C-alpha cells in the first residue's frame, strides 16, 4: 500500500516536472518571423541609402503584454557589382547593420554604396534575445544616385521668387522708375540736425558704436556717417567723431575725407576731429559725455552697436538740447534711444539706410526684393501657426494635414529653413 502511494507521489512529481519542463521549453521558443520583406532605393540622396520594409511579426502586437517581440534586427549581404573590384567591402555573408524597435517596419540603411548590390534579411527578436528565423529579400538591390533632393524644392521656389524679385526690382529702378521707399524719419532728420548745428554755430557729434569694424552695425553706422559728413561739408559746419576702436577711427577718417571731397569742400576736412579715445567701454563714455557737456554739440548721432552706454550718451545729449538721431540693431537698447532721442532708426531701418541714402539701383532693388522674401516668410509663419493650431485642436486630424505641418515645421521653419 505504502509503495503505491509513493509511486503516485512520484508520478505526480514527475508530471509536475514534465509540466514545468514543458513550460520552460515553450518560454524559450523564438517569436514568429516578420514577412514580406522589400528593399528599395532611398529617394533624394547621393546613392548611399536603401529602405528595407517588412510586415510585422504576428507576435508583435500593439497591445501585447508582456511584449514578445522587442526589436527587429536587420542583416545585410553586400555583393560587389564588378567581381574584380571586390576590395571595398568584404561582406560575402550576412552581417548585422542595424536594428529598430518593435512596431516599426522600416529601416533606412545609409551605409550602402553604389558599387554594390545588397540583400537584406530581418529577424524579430524576443525579450530573451531569441531571434526568429530570418526573412530574406530575394532580389538584390543597388542604391541609386539622385541629382536633386526634391524635399528641398520649396527652397528653390523661394530662391527663384526672392532672387527674381531682386533682379526684377533692380531692372525696374534702372529703367528709371522710382521705387517707393517708406520715408525713414531718422534719415530725413539728419539734414535738419546738421542745419540746427550750423545755425547755432555748434558742432555735430557722431558716435559709430563701441564695437570694432568687423561688426556689421559699425559698418552700417559708417554708411550713415558718410551722409552726415557730406551734409556737414555742404553746410560748412564742423563734425567731431570720437571712436572706441583704432580701426574705426581710420575707416571714419577715410569715409569723412571722401564725403568732404565729393561735397566739393576737401579744404574744410580736418583729420584731428576724428580721434581714438580708449577701448574701455566706460572710459570712452566718460570722455564723450564730458566732451558733450563742455562743447554742447547741437546735433548728436549714435549709429552702431551700443550696450549699457546708450542711455548715458542719449540722456546727456538730451540734457544739452541737441537734436539726436540714433540707429542700432540692439533690441535691448532701442527703448532707451527712442525715449531719449529725437529720431531712432530701428534694426532693419538702420541696415536699409545705405540703400535709402544712395538710391543706387542695385541696393534699392535688393532692398525691395528682400522685402518680398520677408513677406513670404511672414505668410508661411502665419500659415504654419494656423495649421499647427488646427492640428492640435482636432481630435482626429487628417494625416495629410499632419504631415504638412510636420513638413513646414521641420523643413521650412525648422533647422533646415528660415531658422538655422
Amino acid at each position, binding site marked *: 500500500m505504502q509503495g503505491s502511494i509513493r509511486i503516485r507521489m512520484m508520478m505526480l512529481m514527475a508530471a509536475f516536472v514534465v509540466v514545468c519542463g514543458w513550460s520552460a521549453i515553450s518560454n524559450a521558443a523564438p517569436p514568429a518571423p516578420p514577412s514580406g520583406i522589400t528593399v528599395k532605393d532611398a529617394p533624394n540622396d547621393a546613392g548611399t541609402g536603401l529602405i528595407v520594409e517588412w510586415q510585422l511579426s504576428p507576435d508583435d502586437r500593439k497591445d501585447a503584454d508582456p511584449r514578445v517581440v522587442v526589436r527587429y534586427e536587420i542583416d545585410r549581404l553586400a555583393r560587389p557589382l564588378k567581381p574584380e573590384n571586390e576590395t571595398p567591402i568584404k561582406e560575402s555573408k550576412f552581417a548585422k547593420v542595424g536594428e529598430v524597435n518593435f512596431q516599426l517596419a522600416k529601416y533606412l540603411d545609409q551605409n550602402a554604396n553604389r558599387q554594390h548590390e545588397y540583400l537584406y534579411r530581418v529577424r524579430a527578436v524576443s525579450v530573451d534575445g531569441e531571434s526568429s528565423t530570418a526573412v530574406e529579400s530575394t532580389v538584390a538591390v543597388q542604391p541609386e544616385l539622385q541629382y536633386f533632393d526634391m524635399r528641398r524644392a520649396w527652397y528653390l521656389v523661394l530662391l527663384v521668387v526672392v532672387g527674381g524679385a531682386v533682379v526684377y526690382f533692380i531692372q525696374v529702378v534702372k529703367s528709371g522708375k522710382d521705387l517707393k521707399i517708406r520715408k525713414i524719419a531718422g534719415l530725413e532728420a539728419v539734414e*535738419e540736425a546738421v542745419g540746427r548745428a550750423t*545755425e*547755432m554755430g555748434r558742432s555735430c557729434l557722431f558716435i559709430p558704436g563701441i564695437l570694432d569694424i568687423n561688426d556689421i552695425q559699425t559698418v552700417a553706422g559708417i554708411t550713415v556717417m558718410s551722409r552726415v559728413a557730406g551734409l556737414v561739408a*555742404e*553746410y*560748412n559746419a564742423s563734425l567731431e567723431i570720437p571712436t572706441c576702436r583704432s580701426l574705426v577711427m581710420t575707416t571714419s577718417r577715410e569715409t569723412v575725407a571722401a564725403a568732404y571731397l565729393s561735397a566739393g569742400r576737401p579744404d574744410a576736412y580736418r583729420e584731428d576731429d576724428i580721434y581714438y579715445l580708449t577701448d574701455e567701454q566706460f572710459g570712452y563714455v566718460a570722455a564723450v559725455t564730458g566732451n558733450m557737456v563742455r562743447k554742447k554739440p547741437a546735433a548728436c548721432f549714435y549709429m552702431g552697436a551700443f550696450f549699457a552706454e546708450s542711455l548715458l550718451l542719449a540722456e546727456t545729449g538730451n540734457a544739452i538740447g541737441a537734436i539726436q538721431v540714433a540707429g542700432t540693431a540692439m533690441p535691448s537698447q532701442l527703448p532707451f534711444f527712442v525715449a531719449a532721442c529725437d529720431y531712432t532708426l530701428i534694426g532693419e531701418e538702420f541696415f536699409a539706410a545705405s540703400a535709402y541714402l544712395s538710391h543706387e539701383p542695385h541696393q534699392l532693388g535688393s532692398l525691395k526684393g528682400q522685402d518680398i522674401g520677408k513677406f513670404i516668410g511672414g505668410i508661411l509663419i502665419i500659415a504654419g501657426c494656423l495649421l499647427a493650431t488646427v492640428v492640435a485642436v482636432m481630435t482626429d486630424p487628417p494625416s495629410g494635414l499632419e504631415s504638412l505641418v510636420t513638413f513646414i515645421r521641420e523643413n521650412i521653419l525648422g533647422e533646415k529653413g528660415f531658422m538655422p
Partner: protein
Amino acid sequence: MEEPAADVTVGVTNAVTEIAELSGRKLVDDNGQIIRPAQGDVGCDAYISTSSAGGGLQMMVAGVVREMTAASAKRAALGAGAIVMDVIASNDRRLPHEQIQRIRELRPDMILISGGTDGGTTSHVVQLAELIAPAKPQPRFGSEYRMPVIYAGNKEAVPIVEETFDKSVELSVVPNLRPVLERENLGPARDKIHDLFLEHVMAHAPGYDKLISWTDSPIMPTPGAVGDILRTIAEGQGINAVGVDIGGATTDVFSVFDGVFNRTVSANLGMSYSISNVCSEAGMPSILRWVHLEMDERELRNRVKNKMIRPTTIPQTLEALVFEQAVSREALRLAYQQHKEFATTLKGVQQQRTVGDTFSQNTSGQTIVDNMKLDLLVASGGVLSHAPRMVQTAAMLVDAFQPEGITTLAKDSIFMMPHLGVLAQVHSKAALEVFERDCLIYLGTCVAPKGQGQRGKPCFSYSIRSHALNELGEISCGELKQLPLADGEKAEITVEPARGFDCGAGKGKPVRKEIRGGTVGIILDGRGRELELSTKREQSVPAVTQWNQALDLYPESS
C-alpha cells in the same frame, strides 16, 4: 504808370472824383486835394492806399540754412508783400562765385539777411555779408539811392556785419528773425520792410511823396494788405482760411491755419503772361484731362502762345472758355502745392519722444496746410471772379484746391480785399463789417469726405434741413451733386460718411454742422480725396462730362 500821367496823384484824384460823383458827396477840393476829415456832408474820414507800382516790391533774401533761417527770411519778405527773387543760403548747392554772380544779376529793391540764432553762428552770417558786399548789388530804380539792406540775424554778429558793408548800402539792423530755432519773430523785419518800401522804393516813383502825405495810414504793398485782412478775418472768427489771387503773371496764395499766416507768390503761374509756363509745367495732358471736349493739341499750343503774346484777349467760344478754365485749375493746383510745401512748421526743433513713438516718428517741417481743417476758401483774380457762371468759379476752386470735409466757398467781388487790409489797421471793425457784407460773395459750401472708394459704391449719406430745404440722400463714389441754398440762408447738415471716408470727425463718423448757402448752393462731392483723374482721355472724358452735367457747368455744350 505811363506817359502822360506820370504822377500817381493824377489817377488818384480822378478816381476819387468819380467816387464823389457816384456817392453825391464832395470829396475833392478845388486844389485837387482830398478833403479830410469829414465836415458835414463834405469830405471823408480817412484816405488809405495800397501800391503795386512797378510790379511790386522785389526782394532778395539770404540766410544760413535754406530750410531754417533762410526760410524764415523768405516768409518775412513774402508776408510783407514782396516778391522774393532769390534765396541765398549756405546750403543752396551753389559755389560762392555763382552766388556772387547771381546777386550781381538780380536787381532787387531790397535785401534781407538773416542767419544764426542769437549766440549762434557768426562765421556763416559774416560769410553771407562777405558775399553780398563785394557783389555790390544795384537797385532796380536808378542809382540815386543806396541799396537798402536789412540785417535780422544773430545779434552777436551785428558789429562785424556792419563792418563788412561799406557806405554803398543802407544797412538797417532789426531783431533776429529766429532768436532761437524754436521761435520765429517776423514782426520787426516785416515792419522794417514796409518802412523801407515807403522811404526808398516808393519815394522814387513820381508823385508818391505827395500821395504819402495824403494817406492816413502808411501805403502798403497790395499783397501785404490782402494778407492782413485775411489774417484779421481768420483771427476774428476763429477759422482757418485760404485765399487765392490768380493774375496774368503770378498767383498769390494766402493761408491762415491755427493763427499762423503764410503767403506764397508763384511767380510764373498765371493766366495770360504766364499761361505758357503753366502749360509747360503742368504738361498738356494734365490740363486736357479737365476738358471734356475734343481739341487739337497742335492748335491748342498755338492758342496758348497767342494768349501769352496778346494777353488781353478774352475767350469767345465755349471751347476756349473750357480750356482756359482747365488751365486755371492746373495753375491753381500747382500754386497751392507750392504753398503747401512752403507753409510748414519750423525746422530744426528738438523733438520730445516717448517709447510709444517708436513706429510713428514724424519729422518736423510738415506742412501746416490741412484741407480738412480749412473753413473758408476765398477766390479772386480774373479767371475766377469773371467766370460767366458762379458755379464755374466754385468748380474750379473745388477741383484745384480739393477742400476736404465741409468748406465754405467765396469770391472777392471787386478786389476789395487789399483796401480792407489797410482799413483794418485804421478801423478794424469797419473793415470786418465791409468784408462780410460787401467784399465777399458767398458761393456756397462744399462737402467732400476724404478717402478713396470704388466708383459707384456708397460714399456718404446726408440730410440737410433748413426752412427752405429738406433733403435726404446718398452720394456714391465718383458722384457730384448740387443742391440750391440761397445766399444768406443757413442749413443744418448731417453727413454720415461710409466706411473709410472721413468728413472731419474721423473715418466713418457722422458730422453735424451748420452751413451757409450762396449763389451756387451746396456741392456734395463724392469723388474722393485726393481727387484722382487720369490723364487718359478715355477715362477722363466720361468722368468730367458727368461732373459737368451734375453741376450744370457748361449748359450750352450738352
